[in-house]
C-alpha cells in the first residue's frame, strides 16, 4: 500500500524550537521601477523608488489603480507578461524576485482561491514540496505552521473545503509559513471575511511576523485593522511614485493625512464615510417611519399604518428542495425552520446571524428564487398590484414568471458578476426595464421611451455614463457594485433584497451604496439585506433580525457524498481493502480488463467481467444495492447501443424485420447484443476502482510512479478541488438570471440560448478562479523546478494481488471467449 505514515507519525514528534526558525526579514528595494501591462498605454507603476528594511511592517495604501496589487505580485514573482514593459529594478535582498522564490509569500483576498489541495496537511505541505524540502522535514514544517496559525486542533486529513473563510486564510498563511519566507505580502487578506475571521487572520499574521522576523507589506481598505500594529504607512501615487511615507500611527493623528486617505475611498479609523452625504432621516415621505417593526417571530407588534408586502408563515428554507430530490435517497433537511415574518412597505430589515445559518437561503426564498422547503411565502395584493394586472399573479413569488418578479422584488447578489448577462453597461441597465411585463400578459410594462429614460437616468445617477458602452466585466469593483444595484432598480421593484452588499467594498463604494438605498427608501421602497456589517445597519437605521440555524446533526458526510462527483472529490479515503491499495496498481488492473474487452466483441468475455465485478464488491466495501443504483443508467445505455447496432449493422443471416431504410437481421441482433454486453462490462471495473480511489493519491501515483509531468498532474488535481465551487456558481448564476428576468423558460431554442449564456457566465467565473489559483500556486513556489513529494507513492507487496487480479480477470474473459467459440477479434 501507499506509505501514508508521513503525516501521522512524523507530524507530532518534532517541534523545532522557535528560535532556530527565526530567519531574517527581507530587504525590499525599488529603483526607478516601472511596469506597463501589454494592453495598457499608461504604466501600472512608474518610477518607483523604495527602501524597506528587513522586518519592517508596511501598510501600503493608495487610490485604486495606483498599482498596489501590481507591486505585490511583482514582489511575489507572479507577474508575467511576455509583452509587458519593465524598467528599473525591483529587488529582494539584492536579487530579482524570480531568483528569490520561496522568500516571499503572497496571500490574496478570496479565501477560496487560496486553498490548493483538499486536505489541510497536504495543502500546507504543497509549498514545501515545491521548494524541494526533503520529505522528512516537510511534515515537521507542516505541523509547526499549522500551530503558528492556530489550526493545530484539526487533523492533517481535515477537508479544507469545510473550513470557514477566516480559517482558509489562516491555512493559506500556514502554507506560506511552510516556505520559511522572509517577506509576507498580503493583498486585502481580510476584505472577504466576517468580523470574527478578520481579527483571527490579522492576529495570526502579526504573530507569524513576530515569530519569524519577516518583513510585512499589507494592502487593505480598512486601515483600522492594521494601522496600530504597522511601522510605516506608504501611500502610492496614481501614475507613479510614492506620495507619502510616514509612521503608520499618523493615520490616527494627522488630520490632513486622514482626509487624504478618506478621499481615496479608504476606511480611515474613526472617520465616517457617510459624512459627505446629505443628512438623512429614516421614515421620510412615503414610508411609515421610525416605529415600523420587523414583525419577526409573529409580527403582532407591527405598526398599523404600514402595509404588509410579504408574509412568511411556518417557513422552512433549504438549498435543496425536497421536491427536487430525484437523485437523493432522502431529502436534505432544511437549514432554517418555523419562521414567521412580515415585511412591511418602507421597512429596512437586516438579516444577521452566524455563517452557514441559512441567511442567504432565506433571502433567496423570500425573493422567489428558491422554493420554500415547507410552509410558504406569500405576497400581498399591495405587492402584486404594482404595474396593473397583479390580481392575475399567484401569491407565491416562486411561481411568478421572472418578468413579473423583476418589477416587484429585486435581488442584488453578493458577487455582482453573477448578475451580468449583457455585453455593455447600457444594455445591462436596460434589461430589467425591458423584461418587465404586465402580469398575465406578454405586454411590456415600460414603453421604449420609458426604458430609454430610465436607463439614462440610472447611468447619470450611478456615475456610469462615461462607461455606458463598456463591458460590465471590465469595470472596477466599486463600479460593478453600483451597476449591480442599478440593473435591479431598472425594473422599478418595490422590494430590494441584497446579499452582503458591502462585503469587501471600500468606503467610497459603501457611501454610494448607502446613498442609493436611502433614495430607494425615501421613494417608498423596502430594503431587505443579509449582512455582517453593523455600519450598514446603522446607516439605514435598519431593524435587525438575528437568525439561528435549525438544530440538526453536524454537517453530515452523507449529504456530501451525494453531490455530483460523489465521494470521489471529498477528502475521505475509502477504508476498504481496495481503497487502501496503490492507485496506479488499480489503474493497471482496470486497464488490463478493459484491454481484454476491447479486443473482442462477444457476450462471453463481457459476461465473465460482469460476474467478476459483482464478486469483487466486498473488497471495495460497496453494497450491491448501492452499486445497482449507480450502474443502472449504464445498463440502459447498453440496451440503446445494442439496438443501434441491430439496425445499422450489415445484414447477415435471416432478416427479422425490414424497416424500409434498413433491415434487422439475426446476425445484426447477435452483434448488437454482444456490443451492448461489452458496453456494460467495460463500465463496471472502472466504477468500482474509481469510487475507491482518492484523486490526491491518484495524482501522486501518476506523477511519481508513472512520471507524468508533475506541473500538469498537480494543475489538474488543484482544478478538481474547484468543482464544488463551480457547481455553487452555476446554481447562483441560475438564480441571478431568474432575478434579472432572463430565467430559463420559453421554447426549446430560448432554453438553449439561456443555458448557453448561463454556461458563459460560469466560464467567466471558472477562469477568474483559475487565474487566482494559479497566482496562489506560483507564489508557493509551484512550477519553478524540481520538487519533493510529501506523500511517497510506491508499490507494496499488497498491491501485487490487485494487478494480478486484473490480469487474471482479463485472461479468464479472453480464454472463456476463445473456448466457447465466441471470440471475435475486432481488428479484422
Amino acid at each position, binding site marked *: 500500500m501507499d506509505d501514508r505514515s508521513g503525516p501521522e507519525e512524523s507530524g507530532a514528534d518534532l517541534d523545532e524550537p522557535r528560535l532556530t526558525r527565526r530567519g531574517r526579514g527581507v530587504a525590499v528595494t525599488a529603483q526607478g521601477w516601472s511596469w506597463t501591462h*501589454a494592453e495598457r498605454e499608461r504604466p501600472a507603476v512608474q518610477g518607483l523608488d523604495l527602501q524597506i528594511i528587513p522586518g519592517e511592517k508596511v501598510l501600503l495604501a493608495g487610490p485604486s489603480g495606483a498599482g498596489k496589487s501590481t507591486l505585490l505580485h511583482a514582489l511575489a514573482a507572479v507577474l508575467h507578461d511576455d509583452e509587458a514593459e519593465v524598467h528599473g529594478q525591483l529587488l529582494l535582498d539584492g536579487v530579482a524576485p524570480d531568483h528569490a522564490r520561496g522568500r516571499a509569500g503572497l496571500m490574496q483576498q478570496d479565501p477560496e482561491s487560496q486553498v490548493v489541495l483538499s486536505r489541510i496537511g497536504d495543502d500546507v505541505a504543497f509549498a514545501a514540496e515545491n521548494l524541494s524540502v526533503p520529505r522528512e522535514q516537510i511534515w515537521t514544517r507542516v505541523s509547526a505552521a499549522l500551530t503558528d496559525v492556530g489550526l493545530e486542533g484539526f487533523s492533517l486529513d481535515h477537508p479544507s473545503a469545510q473550513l470557514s473563510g477566516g480559517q482558509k486564510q489562516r491555512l493559506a498563511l500556514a502554507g506560506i509559513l511552510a516556505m520559511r519566507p522572509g517577506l509576507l505580502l498580503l493583498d486585502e487578506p481580510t476584505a472577504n471575511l466576517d468580523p470574527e475571521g478578520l481579527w483571527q487572520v490579522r492576529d495570526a499574521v502579526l504573530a507569524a511576523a513576530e515569530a519569524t522576523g519577516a518583513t510585512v507589506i499589507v494592502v487593505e481598505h480598512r486601515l483600522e485593522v492594521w494601522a496600530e500594529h504597522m511601522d510605516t504607512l506608504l501611500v502610492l501615487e496614481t501614475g507613479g511614485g510614492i506620495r507619502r511615507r510616514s509612521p503608520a500611527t499618523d493615520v490616527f493623528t494627522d488630520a490632513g493625512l486622514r482626509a487624504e486617505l478618506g478621499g481615496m475611498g479608504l476606511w480611515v479609523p474613526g472617520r465616517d464615510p457617510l459624512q459627505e452625504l446629505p443628512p438623512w432621516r429614516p421614515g421620510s415621505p412615503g414610508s411609515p417611519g421610525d416605529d415600523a417593526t420587523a414583525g419577526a417571530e409573529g409580527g403582532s407588534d407591527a405598526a398599523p399604518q404600514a402595509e404588509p408586502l410579504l408574509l412568511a408563515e411556518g417557513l422552512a428554507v433549504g438549498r435543496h428542495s425536497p421536491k427536487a430530490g430525484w437523485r437523493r435517497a432522502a431529502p436534505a433537511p432544511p437549514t432554517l425552520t418555523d419562521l414567521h415574518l412580515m415585511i412591511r412597505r418602507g421597512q429596512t430589515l437586516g438579516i444577521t446571524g452566524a455563517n452557514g445559518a441559512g441567511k442567504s437561503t432565506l433571502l433567496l426564498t423570500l425573493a422567489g428564487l428558491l422554493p420554500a422547503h415547507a410552509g410558504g411565502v406569500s405576497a400581498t395584493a399591495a405587492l402584486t398590484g404594482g404595474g396593473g394586472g397583479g390580481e392575475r399573479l399567484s401569491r407565491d413569488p416562486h411561481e411568478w414568471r421572472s418578468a413579473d418578479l423583476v418589477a416587484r422584488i429585486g435581488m442584488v447578489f453578493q458577487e455582482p458578476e453573477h448578475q451580468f448577462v449583457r455585453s455593455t453597461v447600457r444594455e445591462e441597465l436596460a434589461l430589467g426595464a425591458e423584461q418587465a411585463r404586465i402580469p398575465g400578459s406578454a405586454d411590456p410594462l415600460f414603453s421604449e421611451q420609458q426604458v430609454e429614460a430610465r436607463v439614462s437616468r440610472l447611468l447619470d445617477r450611478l456615475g456610469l455614463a462615461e462607461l455606458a458602452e463598456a463591458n460590465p466585466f471590465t469595470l472596477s469593483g466599486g463600479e460593478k457594485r453600483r451597476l449591480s444595484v442599478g440593473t435591479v432598480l431598472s425594473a422599478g421593484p418595490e422590494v430590494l433584497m441584497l446579499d452582503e452588499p458591502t462585503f469587501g467594498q471600500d468606503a467610497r463604494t459603501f457611501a454610494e451604496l448607502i446613498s442609493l438605498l436611502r433614495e430607494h427608501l425615501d421613494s417608498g421602497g423596502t430594503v431587505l439585506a443579509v449582512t455582517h456589517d453593523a455600519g450598514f445597519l446603522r446607516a439605514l437605521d435598519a431593524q435587525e433580525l438575528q437568525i439561528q440555524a435549525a438544530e440538526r446533526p453536524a454537517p453530515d458526510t452523507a449529504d456530501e457524498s451525494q453531490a455530483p*462527483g460523489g465521494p470521489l472529490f471529498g477528502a475521505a479515503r475509502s477504508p476498504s481493502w481496495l481503497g487502501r491499495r496503490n492507485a496506479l496498481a488499480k489503474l493497471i488492473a482496470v486497464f488490463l480488463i478493459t484491454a481484454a474487452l476491447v479486443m473482442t466483441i462477444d457476450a462471453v468475455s463481457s459476461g465473465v467481467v460482469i460476474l467478476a465485478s459483482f464478486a469483487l464488491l466486498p473488497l471495495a466495501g460497496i453494497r450491491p444495492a448501492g452499486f445497482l443504483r449507480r450502474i443502472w443508467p449504464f445498463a440502459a445505455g447498453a440496451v440503446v447501443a445494442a439496438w443501434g447496432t441491430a439496425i445499422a449493422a450489415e445484414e447477415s443471416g435471416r432478416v427479422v424485420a425490414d424497416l424500409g431504410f434498413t433491415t434487422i437481421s439475426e446476425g445484426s441482433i447477435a452483434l448488437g447484443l454482444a456490443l451492448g454486453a461489452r458496453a456494460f462490462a467495460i463500465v463496471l471495473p472502472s466504477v468500482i476502482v474509481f469510487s475507491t480511489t482518492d484523486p490526491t493519491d491518484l495524482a501522486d501515483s501518476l506523477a511519481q510512479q508513472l512520471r507524468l509531468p508533475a*506541473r500538469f498532474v498537480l494543475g*489538474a488535481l488543484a482544478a478538481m478541488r474547484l468543482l464544488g465551487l463551480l457547481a455553487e456558481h452555476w446554481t447562483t448564476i441560475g438564480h441571478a438570471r431568474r432575478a434579472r428576468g432572463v430565467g430559463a423558460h420559453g421554447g426549446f431554442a430560448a432554453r438553449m440560448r439561456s443555458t448557453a449564456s448561463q454556461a458563459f457566465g460560469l466560464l467567466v467565473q471558472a477562469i477568474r478562479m483559475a*487565474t487566482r489559483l494559479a497566482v496562489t500556486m506560483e507564489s508557493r513556489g509551484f512550477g519553478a523546478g524540481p520538487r519533493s513529494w510529501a506523500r511517497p507513492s510506491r508499490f507494496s507487496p499488497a498491491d501485487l494481488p490487485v494487478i494480478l487480479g486484473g490480469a487474471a480477470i482479463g485472461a479468464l474473459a479472453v480464454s472463456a471467449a476463445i473456448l466457447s467459440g465466441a471470440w471475435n477479434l475486432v481488428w479484422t
Partner: protein
Amino acid sequence: MSSRERAVSAGRGTTEHSPARSWRWSVSDIVVASVLAVASGVIFWGWNLSYHLIGNLFVFYPPVETLVHGMWLFPAVLGALVIRKPGAAIYCEMVAAAVSALLGSQWGLTVLSSGFMQGLGAELIFLAVAYRRFSLEFAMLAGAASGLTGGITYHWIVPMYAYAPAETIIHIASFALSGAIIAGLLPWFATRGLAAASVLGPLASRRAHREPRLSLGRSRG
C-alpha cells in the same frame, strides 16, 4: 473586410509573429487549462447521463446520432483557442475525458483513447498553422478534424460500432459536422466573449476579441 479591419489585421501581423511569445506553458496556462478541462469533464458526465435519453432520439437511424457528438469535442478546441500553446487541445480533451471516467462513464477507461484521438485531430490543425491562427475557420476546421479522428477511433482503433460501410461514412461525416459547429463555432464565440470580458489577462488569447474573424484574405490586407 472593411478598411478598418484590414488596418487592424495588418497592424496585428507584426506582434502576432513576434518570436517573443514562449511556447512553454506558464502556471496560469496550466491551471486555466486544467480548470476548463475538469469543468468540461463534469459537463461530459452530465451529458453522458442525458445521452442515455438523447441517444434514443436517433433510434430511427442510429448512424446520425453523431450529429450531437460534438458535445464531446468542445474542450479540445476551447483549450487550444484560450491557451494557444502546443498540446492544449490534447491535454484539455484527455483531462476532460479522464474526469468523466472518474465520475463514472458508460465507456469506462476507453474514453482515454477516444479523448486522446479527438484532441489529436484538433491539435493537428493548430500545429499545421504553427499555433498562429485562431480565427473562426481554423476553429471550425479543428472541430471537424476532432470529429474525424473521433470517428476513426469509434470504428477502427477501439471499435464501438459495427456498421455497414455506407452507415460508417454517414456516422463519421455527421461527427465532423457536429464537431465544426458545437466544438468549433461555439468555443470560438466563447473565447471572444471571454477576451471581451477581459478575464484572459495572463493568457495569450487576451486580445481574441479584437482579432479579425477570419484569417483568409488577410494577405490581401
